[in-house]
């Protein structure tokens, strides 16, 4: 039996069990809605454009925050990785901040930016930026000295040495940081939207709770899973495949 068939069978079984449990009458419907109710909700929500708008708002927020985090985090990681004095000062500060869950920035962010898009963007950035920076930093710092010696010996120096040897050598580590940064940003965004911001998928979850509409809650959770998987397949799996093919990590 192929792995797709196994997977398909497993999920079919799961849905059937869910169906049976929902119709058994053990739990009231507002606690465990039936699969077809969730499906109906999903179709209606998407058909009316309500969910699509929430998806668009959330994706816009995360993309903006994530791109800013990449744009700042990768150069910052490179600088702290190469300059010792910067690593000892700024680097240690970042390391300390990483211990802080990014949603803990929310109160401060609200005071600084008010109830605005900026406030949630700040929380998303604080979620992604640190892991991207620190992964880039350790990637650059852990480049084997042998590669640097070989690069210098072959005539690379200064900027060329950096772009042609140090950066590509740090690439696997940067990919790990990018992936981790993405998932931190996604979590921070959901936490932020649940707590205060209108529009967005997190807000829909909250509305579902307030209206005791469990079908909506589960439908939105499905959307969140699909978005997460989609980004993983489209971006991170491909980057990881490049690393595996070149470095041969899957052979270890």
């Amino acid at each position: 039996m192929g792995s797709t068939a196994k997977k398909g069978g497993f999920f079919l079984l799961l849905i059937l069990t869910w169906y049976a449990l929902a119709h058994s009458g053990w739990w009231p419907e507002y606690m465990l809605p039936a699969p077809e109710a969730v499906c109906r909700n999903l179709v209606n929500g998407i058909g009316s454009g309500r969910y699509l708008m929430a998806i668009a708002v959330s994706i816009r927020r995360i993309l903006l925050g994530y791109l800013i985090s990449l744009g700042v985090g990768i150069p910052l990681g490179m600088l702290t990785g190469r300059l010792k004095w910067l690593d000892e000062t700024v680097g240690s500060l970042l390391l300390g901040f990483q211990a802080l869950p990014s949603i803990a920035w929310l109160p401060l962010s609200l005071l600084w930016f008010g109830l605005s898009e900026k406030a949630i963007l700040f929380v998303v950035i604080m979620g992604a930026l640190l892991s991207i920076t620190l992964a880039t930093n350790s990637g650059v710092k852990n480049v084997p000295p042998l590669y640097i010696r070989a690069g210098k010996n072959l005539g690379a120096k200064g900027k060329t040495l950096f772009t042609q040897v140090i950066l590509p050598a740090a690439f696997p580590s940067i990919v790990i940081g990018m992936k981790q940064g993405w998932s931190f940003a996604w979590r921070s965004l959901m936490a932020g939207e649940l707590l205060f911001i209108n529009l967005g998928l997190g807000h829909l979850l909250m509305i579902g709770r307030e209206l005791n509409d469990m079908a909506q809650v589960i439908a939105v959770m499905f959307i969140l899973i699909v978005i997460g998987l989609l980004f993983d397949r489209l971006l991170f799996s491909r980057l990881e495949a490049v690393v595996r093919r070149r470095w041969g990590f899957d052979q270890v």
Partner: protein
Amino acid sequence: MNGLQILKDTAVVDLEQNLRTKFLSIPENTRLKLEIKDVSKTFNTRDGRICALNRINLTIKEGEFTCVVGPSGCGKSTLLHLIAELEAPDKGEIILYSTEDEGRLVERLIVFQESALFPWLTVLENVAFGLRIKGMRYRERVERAMDYLHLVRLSKFAHCYIHELSGGMKQRVALARALAMNPEVLLMDEPFAALDIQTRENLSRELEEIWSKTGKTIIFVTHNVEEAVTLGDRVILFSGRPGTVQKEYRLNLSRPRQRENPLLKEMINLISNDFKRLDGASINEATG
């Protein structure tokens, strides 16, 4: 014991003969390539200052295959790093007499013990790396890199990534990458130390062949006396901590070298004995 004595004398006679023939031959062949004058190097470590090299004097002629043998930690690798200008000597100077050559992209190149190939590049891109850094055009550098991959018989693997190669193949790619830059001197830092005996012997035979084809000046560092005697025109014996030149042997043996040659075997014994005596002395010194 007696036999060894006689062979020692033969070696001396060979040495004299060799010197004579060298002096009588065409001047180009005896042109000085590298002069190492009174070079010392000290490192600061956690355990204090360690003198890695103490007053090294060596001259190396063009096209010569010089092997440096010594116990580990005797500063042989440091010497190569100094020649390659990866580090600067504390005292003394290293003079390289360059010759004009349009294809020369770099003067001094090291082949490291672990190949130091870049995993993010294919075999071909690795060989072309230095050419690209020096601004050679795409077509030209691919052609040149392919030529050198042919030389080390790996052209079939041009588009593989490094992790797909065996240890011996990696070292051949590293050799091709170095030769493609057409350096004045090729420095080899125990390049075959991490390989099994069979691969090592094959590679050393190939290296001898490539050397006779290209006429490169090679300085080859190893702790394996047999390897040094099989490859070198000269063998220089180092002692450890601080590294100093202890003895020098000139090997006037026919090429390509035959491993079964009794004279070669005796030379290995002779140098090995000197090496062991030296190693023993340094151990005694350390414990006493």
